[in-house]
């Protein structure tokens, strides 16, 4: 479904060149929920943003549903993006539009008729559990409701893939759980492939059958969750996946080491 090969991305910063992504190879299957986990600054956000080319990679190829994303011209890219939904950490809703208007936006962009839009928006709002909030403005919603609108907007054009860029990182734990349930729900109902990036192990554990660990711009390990947890090859993977030596414990140990 998604094939990433030899992907590289560098940034020019005042203090020199930063290699944000180094030779990334990944393969994601149709219908799965694939997690990419890493600490902040590891390059995971850059990676997911390359998938719909909100960031332009320097080299390498990305194929999604048979289409070579990295070779598309601007018009081709716009067409491809209609089939790649994306949700964001800070929701990025349009404050000038109601919930209805936000979900209608991708449909307006795609040139659907008004009755068609009304029908489709009602259907998706029902799916995400916001059937009664169509006329509310984002400012009137809770964080969890906002992300539901974000998800509804991303699903409006019936995409093949959903990219989730830290979608639950600014939500509290119980809201996070309900959003994760919703994501699993739509993955099953719509047979939708989901790629998510996160720094929270809980998210990966809750949703993903397979995952990859990213560190300093490179994929250090990828595979089924069970394998990563039972036979981690790298220290960072152990840090994320081995419950006996959690991120928190590791932090405590280093702290003790410095004190002692």
């Amino acid at each position: 479904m998604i094939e990433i090969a030899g992907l590289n991305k560098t940034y020019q910063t005042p203090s020199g060149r930063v290699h944000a992504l180094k030779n990334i190879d990944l393969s994601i299957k149709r219908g799965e929920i694939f997690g990419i986990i890493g600490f902040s600054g590891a390059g995971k956000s850059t990676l997911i943003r390359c998938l719909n080319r909100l960031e332009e990679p320097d080299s390498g190829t990305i194929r999604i549903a048979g289409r070579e994303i990295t070779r598309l011209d601007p018009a081709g890219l716009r067409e491809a993006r209609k089939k790649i939904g994306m949700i964001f950490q800070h929701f990025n809703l349009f404050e000038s539009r109601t919930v209805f208007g936000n979900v209608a936006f991708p449909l307006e962009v795609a040139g659907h008729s008004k009755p068609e839009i009304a029908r489709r928006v009602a259907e998706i709002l029902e799916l995400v559990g916001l059937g009664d909030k169509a006329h509310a403005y984002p400012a009137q919603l809770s964080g969890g409701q906002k992300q539901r609108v974000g998800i509804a907007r991303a699903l409006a054009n019936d995409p093949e893939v959903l990219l989730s860029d830290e979608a639950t990182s600014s939500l509290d734990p119980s809201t996070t759980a309900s959003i994760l349930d919703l994501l699993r729900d739509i993955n099953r109902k719509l047979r939708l492939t989901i790629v998510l990036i996160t720094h929270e192990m809980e998210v990966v554990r809750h949703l993903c059958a397979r995952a990859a660990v990213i560190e300093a711009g490179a994929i250090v390990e990828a595979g089924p969750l069970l394998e990563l947890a039972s036979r981690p090859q790298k220290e960072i993977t152990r840090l994320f996946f081995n419950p006996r030596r959690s991120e928190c414990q590791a932090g405590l140990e280093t702290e003790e080491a410095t004190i002692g």
Partner: protein
Amino acid sequence: MADDLLPLLTTGLGETLYMVILSTAASLLLGLPLGVALVVTEPGHLLPAPRLNKVLGTLVNVTRSFPTIILIVVLLPLSRLLVGTTLGATAAVVPLSIGSAPFLARIIESSLKEIDRGKIEAGLAVGATPLQIVRKVMIPESLASLTLGITMAIIMIIGFTATAGAIGAGGLGSLAVRFGYQRYRTDVMLATLVVLVLLVQGVQWVGNVIARRINRNRHKFG
């Protein structure tokens, strides 16, 4: 109070309103696309074009450096070309529009730059064209701020017309100079000032009300 005061004031106010409305409309026509262009041609924005951005920015700065009165004089030949005369309210609209368009462009630019980049990316992510993002995201999202900016520009144009009035454009400015100043008609001078103050207050009030209504609609509960 002299008998001629009221007719003088109504004629003056009529000419001023005529100039302000036409100049605002024309400078919006020039300034809005210019302001949008200043934003979207920036590096990393919708249609990055660093060189064009620099050219437009310089053009705006140069026009804005001209003292009002010099700009009017410089643009008089253009007025003759476009409206056939260099005298009167209609002739003044040409330099007034061209003089205020760059100011308006900068105001629109700063309003549009307040928009969170994430919203623009959300638009891009669903496959919107740059024009769709400008029309359906950038302008609606910054509408309250744009309204206040345009209000500011209208008030500047009112001041601008007074200057133009001093060199033959008519309107309240010309009334103040020709009667109030040159003929020592203190009553005309004072009345003109009162009308100008009321006009500016009124415009600001209307602008504030519209901006507040836009914001309230977005935050209304229920």
